[in-house]
């Protein structure tokens, strides 16, 4: 068994054993109600520090745009697909896209997507790195 780690421990609600069972969190400002991701301490909107609550990010969004990359840095096996996803809570995430092959047929701009937790890459020492990915929302043509 390879070791596993999250892409960033501070960005998820529970640091539980199973990397598939994680919830990404943002910071929600108690004063102005603005939501930020990744989590942070200062709300630039009202210039307050440590007035944030953690809030689970929406797991649903729509695909702003995507590409299929035929080149990639170490730890990524081309071709792989990624995109910008606009979540229903207003947060925009860059994310790998999964369960969507053949890519050019399955992926459409503005299509509804849902978040899954999955392996993103591996560290050079073989440690598996987990984070969020998005896949087409099953039965979704909203």
């Amino acid at each position, binding site marked *: 068994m390879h070791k596993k780690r999250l892409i960033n421990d501070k960005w998820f609600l529970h640091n539980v054993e199973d990397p598939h069972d994680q919830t990404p969190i943002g910071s929600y400002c108690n004063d102005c109600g603005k939501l930020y991701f990744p989590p942070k301490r200062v709300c630039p909107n009202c210039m307050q520090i440590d007035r944030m609550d953690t809030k689970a990010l929406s797991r649903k969004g729509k695909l702003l745009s995507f*590409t299929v990359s*035929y080149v990639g840095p170490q730890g990524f096996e081309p071709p792989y697909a990624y995109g910008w996803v606009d979540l229903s809570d207003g947060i*925009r995430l860059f994310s790998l896209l999964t369960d969507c092959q053949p*890519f050019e047929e399955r992926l459409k701009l503005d299509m509804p997507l849902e978040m899954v937790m999955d392996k993103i*890459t591996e560290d050079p020492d073989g440690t598996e790195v987990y984070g969020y990915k998005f896949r087409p929302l099953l039965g979704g043509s909203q």
Partner: protein
Amino acid sequence: MRDVVVLGVGMTLFGKQTDKSLRELGEEASFLALKDAGVRPGDIEAAWCGNVLGSLCGQQAGVGQIALEQVGVTGIPVVRIENACSSASFAFKEAFMAVASGFYDIVIAMGIEKMSGYDTAATLRAMAGTSDYELEGVQGITFPGVFAMITRRHMHHYGTTLDQIARVAVKNRGNGSFNPKSQFQGRVSVDDVFQSRMISSPLTLYNCCPISDGCAVAVLTTERVAKRYTSTPIYVAASEQTSGTYREDLDITQFEPTIKAAKKAYEQAGIGPEDVSFAEVHDCFTIAEILHYEDLGFCNKGEGGPMVESGETEINGKIPVNPSGGLLSKGHPIGATGVAQIVEIVEQLRGHCGDRQVKTPKIGLAHCLGAFRHADVCSASVTLLKK
């Protein structure tokens, strides 16, 4: 503020120059710029040097000092500026402000980069560092990918076609074939662009700028000093820069920082986009040039595709864009590009560009972008030069 003049310019060949060190690239371009300006090394009072991989790849710190020592420019403040692909544009801005403010009379703005001959993994890692590494780089984002996503959205929203986008590469490679310092010297056809290998769909290889080495240098001074050296000075009419906002709801079919920097630059120069004779813009990918037409006000939103198709941005068109060949043909040594654009604009305004000479230019615009995070650019620069 004092009026500022670009008194001299010089640059090396752009392209893969594995046999040349940073020191040698810097030596050549600095020598050419000092000779062109007609000043002595001891006349230079300060220098700003754009460079990216020197530190990110662990090549060399203090690149500017080492390069300038080669031509005897020593004993002055030399500042390295890293702002990803717009590093040299910001070096130029600092040099401009130093002269305009009255702090120095004669200064250097330099851009220098060596990207070939280094370990590919290290270069890729360094380039990933010009995204938001913690959020995006670690998830495998690449620059062709960013612009591929922009391409799809622009096509979806405005009906821009891959054929129109390919015509940017055809135009710029054509222009580059008239520029002896351009990395690529051959023309390509729309078919060639389509048939080159897929990099990040829908962008193929010829839609992407190459990896390059090179150095470009400009000597800046005051109007008063310039009159001792030349009767036809080239003035800096404006130089404006801004960072991104990275908002969650940004429209990715435009670059807001370009729009803001251009608006401020036009105001500073007291002109509008219709007064610009020609432009050197940041065509790191073909689609980028189409966005820049729109963001700089050369055409309306969504009309960038038809604009390149119409030939208006050809060398003999209404507003020539990237007569040098741009990043797509001339090459993109990332820390050097901003000053290389200034070199081309000065040479065009002087009428020294031979077969790629723009007809009767009065005002030239240089536009550069640097780094990318969260669907926004981290830096945009717009500089206007005039006769």
